[in-house]
Structures are given as structure tokens and as C-alpha cells.
């Protein structure tokens, strides 16, 4: 049998896991990433990773994890894959532990677990407040080992532009651009696994890294890959608003006992410390006595919105609430939360161990992503696989905290063997594809670059991007109204028109970041429409998708996966049933005592 050739695009947790699995199977892999993989966005994950190891004598089980995940996702997730992921999670933690991830420990030297949103169990393993960083580094080190054994070849500083599709619309490789030399090149492969992460930049300012543009997903979408559940965007309740980025204040702050409150008297000007207990409104604890501050993110976010915008109780009238850890002993904070408290201190110059932090919700995560099947992480385009945040599979309408890291690793573990099986089963590999197929794709991409470089318009791409972000954040995040969504869609079309009249302030052909940004922006504009239109169509409220005009979940009509197709510039939606084979849908309520 011929040796399959695999490409992995994206070196976050999902991508690196896929690479490791392929290298272990003895299949050579080419790994592409915009940033050196060690700088991928996964480093930002703070709080931890879920697995029902049940080391706290609480009777936790993978079934409970499965139930929490499906329930937390408002039953929109396909249950088969979620169940398998939850079952694999304890083994994943063990693997990471063996790789040397510096997880926090109990006195007995076992892994310590903390509580996270949407569950009543201590199920989240963590390494200080930099769990994602520690995990990414562990995988990165393993990949480096394979690299030194020449089983992996890295292309860091390359950006994916498009898939190379043959006449039968089968993926035969990729087309990528070197961000230093600006060289456009094609790379033949039998299968490509996409692990290109989140899409935060579509919303301008989010908690994501700046490289999370969703450009790769969008490019694939425009080449025929379906994009599912785009409208489900998670807004994290507690972020530090900032002009360049909204820095996350992880759920772990609440997991360790942090409390959210506002003064009972609207506009109270006293410093937080001087407001007595009785005059503080711990609204999450009052409204959701059972879960308290650890309700799922969509619930907490809407509660904060309600307090700020409906009840007008934001701090000094501003859109902000307190997240308070100042009652927790300093020593505990430094041991368990140092990494995140440091961020607050560094960027705002205030010590959160002393003063309650001022936070507000910010765009955080996309539940939606490339459509994949329920068993193999395979997209609808033959030869293209996806894993990690860029696919839609595991979180339904709302992701539970600390579940993403599991889904990334699990997705990578499944995708690589599946891609290898597929590649091994091909009659003819990429070597038999006529070179003209690659030539044409390369020329097409170079053409796009040329057009952009020589555009003689007046529009500044950064301005277009900012406007898109502002519109998306205002109308397509926490609260959605159909008229606003219509307006946003029109605005996005206007921006797309204006994009045709851009003028690149940099026309050089060496490390031209403006050019690569423009290419990303073009793709972001498409993705933004996909999200907006998806939200417009879904007339119900489910998980993170909330329409005041349709405040209830509507299983009869909308217990369906949204599947977006791109067809010559228009976006069409079809809907397909959700796998609810194990847990019958039930009402999702966190306020009840039961």
C-alpha cells in the first residue's frame, strides 16, 4: 500500500493532537500554522479541562458529564459524539498527565479538580490558571520530538489560502502563502485536517487571540464545505473590557468562590469595599440558588445584561458589574488563580486580591463551525477533516466551561486516524493528480493577491473591520432582534461592497501583513453574514441564541442543526435532525431547586 500523505492546518490543541496521532501511526505530516504553533490561541485557555475522574468522592461519572454537556448545550449537540467524547475524557487527562502537564495536585499527589459552570461536580482539572498553555506546550513538545525524528515537517509562518480540489471536488492538497516571502505555493496531500480555531476577530474585540479570524473556515465554506450552527456564539459573562481586546476573567475565578454583584442602590458611588454585605445584590446567587455564580455562561451573560440594561444597575451607570474574589485568602488566590489575577493587575493596575474586578460580557467562543459527520470529523468535502473550535460538533447551543479543551483533543484524536483510513483507501493518491490542478489553484490565489495589491480605491481595511466588529457585537451577540439582524446583514453587504474599493497602504511583497489581513477580512465578511443570517432564520431562543421576540425553546420546529451552504455568493440554509438518541430533551432551567 502506498504511504498516505496528511496535512494538518492549525497547531492549537486540536491540530497538535492530530499531528501526534498521525506521527504515531507512522504517517508523515506537514503542519501549517500562521504563528509558531507554541503561540497558538490555545495558550489563552485559563480555567481547565473537564473529565469525570470522580476523584472527590462525589459520584461523578462520564454519564453525568455527558448529561451536563448535552443539557448545557440545550440539546442541540449530537449525542453520539458527545457521549464518546465524555467517555474518552478521563483517558485524555491521564495522557496529558503522563506528558508532563503541571496539573495542580492534592496532598496525596493526585490530580486536583475544581468546579466550573454548568455542573455540580468538581470535574475540572487545572494547571494554575494557565491550563491551555500547559497543555499546548505538552503537545508542542511531543510534536517537537517527532519533528526531530523527521516524522513531522512544520510550516510556521504560513497561512492557508484554499484547498486544492480536483474535478470531482475532492481535496488533493492545500494552497498556502509564506507570510515572509509572500510566496504562494500548493502542497499535495491525500487528506487535510483543519484545526484553525476560533473566529473572535469577526466580532472585532473578543477574548480571542488576534489570529482567530475564522479565515480558513470561511475559505473552505466558500469552496463548498458546509458550515453548521453558525448563529451559536458564546458570550463570556466576565471579561475585562479593553480597546484592543476583552481580556477574559476565567470562570475559575467563580469556581474558586468568586462572587458577582452590583450595589443594590443603582449608581452607588461608594468604593466597593465600603458597601456593606446587605447593600450588595448578588443577583446570580439570588436568581439561581442551586448553581449560584456557576450557572452556564449564556445564563450568566443574560443576567448581567438584564441587571445592566433592564434594571439599570451597572456600576456607576456604566456597563460593568463586580466580580469579587477579595474575600478569598491571598494565599489560595496566588496558588490557584495567579495567572488570571496577574492579567487584571497588569492591564488595569488594580490588585484584584484587594478590590473587586469590574467585568462585562464579551464574545468568547463559537459553538458553530465547519459541518462534520458524527463519527469521523469528516466535512462534506472528501478529504477534508476538521477538529477543535473550528468545527461544530460537541457543544450544541452553548458550551460548558472547560469542555472545549476536551473537545479539541478528542477531535484531533479522532480526525487523524479517520483521515489516514480515508487516504489509505484511495485508489489514486495525490501524486496521480495532474499538476495543472495545482497550478490553476495557485494562479487563482496569486490573482486574488494581485487584485488586492493593485486596487486603487479609497477604503481602509482596518476601518471596515472595525465597523464589522462593532455591528456584530451590538446586534449578533447576547440579545438578537430580527430587524437588527436584517440591518446588520445589509450593513455587511455594504461593507463587502466597500471592500471592493479598498486601498492597501502597503503594496510591498515582503512580509506584507496588510495583504494577509485583507485576505482574512474578506473571508470574515462572509462568515459574519453566515452567522447573522443563521441567527435571523432561527426564530426561537436556545442556549446562547436569545431572541426576546421568541423567548422559548421550540423543539418542534427548531431542534435542528443549521447547515449553511455557499453557492456563488449566496448563503443557503438547510436543516437536519439532531441525534437525541440517548437523552430525551427536557426543559433547561438552572433557577429551579430540583
Amino acid at each position: 500500500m502506498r504511504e498516505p500523505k496528511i496535512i494538518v492546518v492549525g497547531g492549537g490543541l486540536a491540530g497538535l493532537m492530530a499531528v501526534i496521532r498521525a506521527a504515531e501511526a507512522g504517517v508523515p505530516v506537514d503542519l501549517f500554522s500562521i504563528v509558531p504553533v507554541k503561540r497558538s490561541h490555545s495558550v489563552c485557555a485559563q480555567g481547565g479541562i473537564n473529565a469525570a475522574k470522580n476523584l472527590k468522592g462525589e459520584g461523578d461519572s462520564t454519564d453525568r458529564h455527558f448529561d451536563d454537556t448535552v443539557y448545557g448545550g440545550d440539546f442541540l449537540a449530537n449525542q453520539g459524539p458527545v457521549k464518546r467524547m465524555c467517555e474518552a475524557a478521563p483517558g485524555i487527562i491521564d495522557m496529558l498527565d503522563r506528558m508532563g502537564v503541571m496539573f495542580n495536585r492534592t496532598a496525596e499527589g493526585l490530580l486536583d479538580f475544581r468546579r466550573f459552570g454548568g455542573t455540580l461536580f468538581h470535574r475540572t482539572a487545572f494547571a494554575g490558571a494557565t491550563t491551555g498553555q500547559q497543555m499546548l506546550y505538552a503537545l508542542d513538545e511531543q510534536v517537537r520530538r517527532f519533528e526531530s525524528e523527521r516524522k513531522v515537517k512544520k510550516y510556521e509562518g504560513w497561512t492557508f489560502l484554499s484547498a486544492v480540489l480536483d474535478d470531482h471536488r475532492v481535496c488533493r492538497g492545500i494552497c498556502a502563502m509564506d507570510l515572509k516571502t509572500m510566496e504562494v505555493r500548493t502542497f499535495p496531500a491525500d487528506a487535510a485536517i483543519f484545526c484553525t480555531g476560533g473566529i473572535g476577530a469577526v466580532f472585532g474585540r473578543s477574548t480571542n487571540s488576534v489570529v482567530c479570524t475564522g479565515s480558513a473556515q470561511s475559505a473552505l465554506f466558500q469552496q463548498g464545505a458546509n458550515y453548521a450552527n453558525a448563529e451559536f456564539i458564546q458570550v463570556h459573562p466576565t471579561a475585562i473590557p479593553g480597546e484592543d481586546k476583552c481580556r477574559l476573567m476565567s470562570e475559575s475565578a467563580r469556581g474558586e468562590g468568586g462572587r458577582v454583584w452590583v450595589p443594590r442602590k443603582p449608581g452607588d458611588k461608594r468604593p466597593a469595599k465600603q458597601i456593606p454585605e446587605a447593600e450588595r445584590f448578588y443577583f446570580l446567587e439570588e436568581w439561581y440558588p442551586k448553581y449560584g455564580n456557576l450557572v452556564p455562561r449564556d445564563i450568566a451573560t443574560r443576567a448581567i445584561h438584564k441587571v445592566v440594561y433592564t434594571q439599570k444597575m451597572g456600576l456607576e451607570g456604566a456597563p460593568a458589574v463586580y466580580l469579587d474574589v477579595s474575600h478569598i485568602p491571598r494565599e489560595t488566590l496566588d496558588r490557584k488563580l495567579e495567572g488570571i489575577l496577574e492579567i487584571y493587575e497588569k492591564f488595569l493596575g488594580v490588585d484584584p486580591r484587594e478590590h473587586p474586578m469590574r467585568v462585562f460580557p464579551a464574545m468568547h467562543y463559537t459553538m458553530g463551525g465547519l459541518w462534520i459527520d458524527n463519527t469521523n470529523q469528516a466535512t462534506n468535502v472528501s478529504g477534508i477533516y476538521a477538529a477543535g473550535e473550528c468545527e461544530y460538533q460537541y457543544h450544541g447551543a452553548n458550551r460548558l466551561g472547560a469542555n472545549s479543551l476536551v473537545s479539541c483533543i478528542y477531535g484531533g484524536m479522532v480526525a487523524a486516524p479517520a483521515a489516514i483510513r480515508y487516504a489509505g483507501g484511495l485508489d489514486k493518491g495525490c501524486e496521480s493528480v495532474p499538476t495543472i490542478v495545482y497550478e490553476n489553484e495557485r494562479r487563482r490565489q496569486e490573482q486574488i493577491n494581485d487584485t488586492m495589491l493593485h486596487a486603487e480605491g479609497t477604503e481602509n481595511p482596518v476601518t471596515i473591520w472595525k465597523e464589522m466588529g462593532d455591528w456584530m457585537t451590538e446586534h449578533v451577540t447576547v440579545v438578537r432582534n430580527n430587524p437588527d439582524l436584517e440591518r446588520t446583514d445589509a450593513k455587511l453587504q455594504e461593507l463587502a461592497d466597500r471592500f471592493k474599493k479598498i486601498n492597501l497602504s502597503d503594496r510591498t511583497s515582503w512580509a506584507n501583513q496588510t495583504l494577509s489581513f485583507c485576505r482574512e477580512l474578506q473571508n470574515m465578511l462572509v462568515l459574519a453574514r453566515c452567522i447573522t443570517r443563521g441567527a435571523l432564520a432561527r426564530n426561537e431562543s436556545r442556549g446562547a441564541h436569545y431572541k426576546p421576540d421568541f423567548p422559548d425553546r421550540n423543539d418542534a420546529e427548531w431542534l435542528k442543526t443549521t447547515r449553511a451552504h455557499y453557492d456563488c455568493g449566496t448563503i443557503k440554509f438547510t436543516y437536519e435532525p439532531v441525534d437525541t438518541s440517548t437523552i430525551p430533551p427536557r426543559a433547561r432551567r438552572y433557577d429551579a431547586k430540583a
Partner: protein
Amino acid sequence: MDTAAPGGGNSGRKVVVRVKRRPDTREEPRWEEFALDWRPHMNIIICLRDIAERPVTRDGHATTPVSYEASCLEEVCGACAMLINGVSRQACSTLVDSLEQPIRIEPLTKFPVVRDLVVDRSIMFENLKRMKCWVPLDGTYDLGPGPRISPEVQEKYYPLARCITCGNCLEVCPQVNENSDFVGAAILSQVRLFNAHPTGAMHMKERLAAVMGPGGVADCANAQNCVEVCPKQIPLTESIAEVNRQAIREAVFGWLLG
């Protein structure tokens, strides 16, 4: 409110920024000066973004946006290291209000410049490879839990695992320059980390062999600048001394006792 809207509502206050530009590796560097609108909590990345949105110098000349590296914007990816007012640090966590103006921004000097503020730090990753900085693993299939580790040990070594490969410690090290191939503090600290891990220690001998080779631990001359600039406050001088101790032990006893 915590943030002012970009561009809007400015107080007339300006931030003057001088950037060392170098379009590519063939051309000589030149300085460009920009005057930007001041806003609260402004950091260096925001300055560079302002320039990208309106790439016009202070004296009105159109120019190109400044090329730079940044990703996480919360000092955890390591991408944005540069010289700011002559000191090597992370641009995203350097606040304008803490700096004297005009603010001078330059690329790191110990790494080859690609363009403007972008430098090539791949040598650090190569050296991690050379020093075998990983835990040897039989495979990623389910082999049960890893070794037990006491909380004390975890608390001692977790800080080392937070190194973001930013290169600040190399930039300020007098021993790292074009005459030497010293790998620098970050890499040696990783060697210590992996030598300390129960499974990682199984590769200790190989790692020490590499560390005793060219550019290894002996090239440290104890200027101890690394600890002063490390944004993650990693106890680098302890790491280096510890690796020294391990290497000496290996050299003396390895030689005496085989």
C-alpha cells in the same frame, strides 16, 4: 466607562511614538515618528494599530503600517517582544502611561529582523529540540495516570512551565550575541523542568550531554539580566545554577563512576 471609544472623545493629548522601520533585510533601518491620540489604558499594540489604521507620520508623510508580531494580547503567547525605550519587553502589556515620551520602539537585536519589528526567533525552538525538552512518551493511547507528584513539587516547577519563549531573556543577555551560540536562560530553564519531571528525568543524561556541549550552560557568565526582564518572573538564575550542578555532577561522577 472602562474604555474610551477608539478615535472618539479624545482629550487632545498626544502620544508620540518613534518606530525603527526596516522594510526588508536588504535596506538600512530608519526612524519614523507618529503622533497618536491618547486614550486611557493604551498599550503599545494599540499604538501600532492606530498607525495601521492611519499610516501617516507626524510630519504628514504617508507610509506603510508597521509590521509586528502579536497574538494573545494578554502576555501569554510570547509573540510581541520588542525594545521599548531601550528595554526588552512585551508590547501588549506595556502601558503607554508608564513610559517616557517620545516612546522608542525597535525590534529585538539578538535575532535576525524580518521586517520592522518582526524578528525570527526560530532558533529558540530549534534549541528546545536540541536540548530534548520533552517527556519521552510511549504513546498517546490510554496507559493510565501519570506519576504522582506532590503539591510542593508541582508548585516549584509549574512556574518554569510558564515560559512563553518570548526571548526577552536572550535579548538582554550579554553572552547571547553574534560571537556566541549560547542557547540562553529560557532553554536551560526548560532543561531543568524536564530533568525534574519523574518521566522526563529518564532522558536526563542525554539532556545534560547537550547542555554540556557548545552553547550550553557553561556559556552563562552570571550577569543575571534574564531574571530582571522575564515577564513571567521565572527563577532563571536558579534554573541555570541547578543545571550547572547537574552537569558538574554528571561530569565529575559520570567520569569517575561511569
